[in-house]
């Protein structure tokens, strides 16, 4: 009864303090739409600048214009769904092209030299000698450059191989690794964005906890018959509902912009619920450190960023394996249950993983949640619910 009374109270308070609740609920969907605007939900097109300086030559009585032909190959290169891989722009000014690369308005610049056809002719006549060359400009730190260069190289080699009738020593058969079609950048971000929605519970949960301390009402609760477990339990149930709602809204936003999955929604929600609990456990630790709502909105931002960045929500992190368990490496950032949640969501939603495929991640989240909860309850009680 006390549990129910507190649950009703905290639920009403969350509804009435709607600004922070709305922020928690809409943060995930907002990032989904933002990432969608940046990446789109289909395979990416790369901006390819081409400076074609090649001069046509005569070979076997006919005109050989290899530069133009290669350019045509790049232009027509397409994904299995028919979408063009490159947006090709022919340019003549090298400096302007370099500026575009630096500003990342373009991903790759290829220069076809003036002797491209000539060298190709020599090679075909002698079946030996200097091979034609291409000049490639780009920023190796830019992932889109690397992807564009990879596609461009493959198309170039295939074109030369077909023209010279020299077989490539290696043939690469590109196969999608998931759901029967290729995963794009956005697909890979969706699990992280879903976890980001759950991480926002850190604020609502910690606010619910610390508010009682900040406003002095904790003394009233301490004097009452309400136990620590009833207090924390009621807040946890309420925050799990908020976490689940945030997760659901973020998932719906992803579906809205075209994200497709045939993974188990039930399994996804179970992992989400468990992960919400883990974030609540961490929020207990955060609330134990601070004393006021103001501190939550200042100092509390730091653990939020730690969770956000070290859970692989924003960008890939260097992998530091601590140990391996049944063939599963446990990385340094896996001590954050949300990092394991990103992996679990990725497996479920992008690779149709079932329960058995998730035992490592689920066990990890479960164990870490239990540890964080025990630590959080002890520390919160020690700091705020102790008779000093």
């Amino acid at each position, binding site marked *: *009864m*006390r549990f129910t*009374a*507190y649950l*009703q*109270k905290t639920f*009403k*308070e969350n509804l*009435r*303090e709607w600004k922070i609740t709305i922020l928690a609920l809409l943060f995930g969907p907002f990032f989904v739409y933002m990432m969608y605007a940046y990446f789109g939900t289909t395979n990416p097109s790369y901006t390819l600048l081409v400076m074609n300086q090649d001069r046509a030559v005569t070979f076997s009585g006919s005109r050989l214009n290899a530069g133009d032909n290669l350019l045509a190959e790049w232009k027509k290169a397409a994904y299995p769904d028919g979408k063009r891989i490159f947006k090709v722009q022919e340019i003549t000014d090298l400096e302007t092209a370099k500026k575009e690369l630096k500003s990342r308005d373009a991903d790759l610049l290829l220069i076809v030299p003036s002797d491209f056809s000539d060298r190709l002719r020599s090679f075909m006549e002698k079946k030996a000698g200097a091979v034609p060359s291409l000049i490639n400009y780009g920023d190796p730190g830019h992932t889109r450059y690397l992807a564009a260069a990879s596609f461009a190289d493959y198309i170039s080699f295939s074109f030369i191989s077909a023209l010279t009738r020299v077989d490539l020593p290696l043939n690469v058969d590109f196969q999608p690794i998931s759901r029967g079609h290729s995963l794009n950048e956005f697909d890979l971000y969706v699990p992280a964005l879903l976890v980001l929605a759950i991480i926002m519970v850190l604020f609502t949960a910690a606010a619910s906890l610390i508010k009682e301390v900040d*406003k*002095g*009402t904790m*003394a*009233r*609760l*301490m*004097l*009452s*018959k*309400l136990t620590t477990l009833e207090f924390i339990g009621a807040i946890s149930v309420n925050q799990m509902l908020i976490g689940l709602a945030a997760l659901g809204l973020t998932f719906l936003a992803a579906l809205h912009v075209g994200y497709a999955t045939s993974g188990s929604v039930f399994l996804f929600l179970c992992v989400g619920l468990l992960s919400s609990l883990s974030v609540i456990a961490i929020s207990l630790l955060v609330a134990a450190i601070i004393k006021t709502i103001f501190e939550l909105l200042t100092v509390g931002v730091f653990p939020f960023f730690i969770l956000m960045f070290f859970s692989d929500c924003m960008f890939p992190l260097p992998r530091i394996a601590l140990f391996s368990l049944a063939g599963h490496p446990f990385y340094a950032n896996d001590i954050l249950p949300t990092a394991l949640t990103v992996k679990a969501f990725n497996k479920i939603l992008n690779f149709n993983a079932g329960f058995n495929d998730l035992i490592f991640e689920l066990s990890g989240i479960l164990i870490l949640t239990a540890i964080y909860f025990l630590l959080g309850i002890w520390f919160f009680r020690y700091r705020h619910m102790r*008779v*000093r």
Partner: protein
Amino acid sequence: MNPIIKKDMELRVIGLSHTYGDLTAVDRLSFDIRRGEIFGFLGPNGAGKTTTIKMMCGLLRPSEGTIEIHGRTLTAKDWKGLRFIGVCPQNIVIWETMTCLEQLEFMGRIYDLERRRAKQKALELLGVFGLGDKRNKLARTLSGGMQRRLNIALALVHEPEILFLDEPQAGLDPQSRVLVREYIKSLAGKMTVVLTTHDMEEAEKLSDRVCIIDRGRLLALDTVANIKAQLGQGNLFEIEIREEAGQKLLPYLSGLQAQPGRFTARDGTVRLISDEAVDLLPLILQKIKEQGLHLENLRIRKKTLEDVFIRLTGRGLRE
């Protein structure tokens, strides 16, 4: 003044001390509180009142000493959820985003009051404290005075036997003060009330017994009448002289001094507590005239608790 209905002891404090680092906030304090009495717990700012109340409520662990209830020594753990204690803290401690009714009902329920009873008690208290028409208003929308009344009601909803009221009337308008005073009065004999206040008049009107502490130590503990008697018999006679030369007048008045009363002077005010003050008046006036001093004001009044309080704790400002 309400008679103490039951003389049996409700709460006993024995050698209670509490230190914050080097500061001894409460220093070997001992007293007992009787069942059904209104116990005025007085002291200047920083005297250790709130610290003592916190220890009596189980919110603060004593550095030394014990607290007994009905003869049983309590540890901090024992206090958790003791239904018979109600606390109204000095600051307004309410749930701002809950309505008045919701939070009173909630308080009842976390003290295991059956839901219907909790609501009934909540409505009753809202009526008593003049908040009936605000029952469905969020607490944050109430005026400061209303919030303070709600603060008191929150301490009462679970029907405690011992009620701690830490400056319940601070910040209340005169109407609310009367309402709260009347309510506290109505509790006499039904509930043990420990009342701290800086309003000596209020304490005098309400308290069966008064305990005055300063710097964590007990200075006086008795009924108001007995404590006032410590200043001596008779009324208080005050002469204000414009020249602020009260001290100069003392030697000329000393010859007139009636026993056991005595003259005291501070700045321009000379005081005498005596049963014979009226008889001495013509002689005093003559002495003032002889000295060429200008009489600003002259009063004969009853001694108040504040007089005793100032005598015991001094006039120096506190933190």
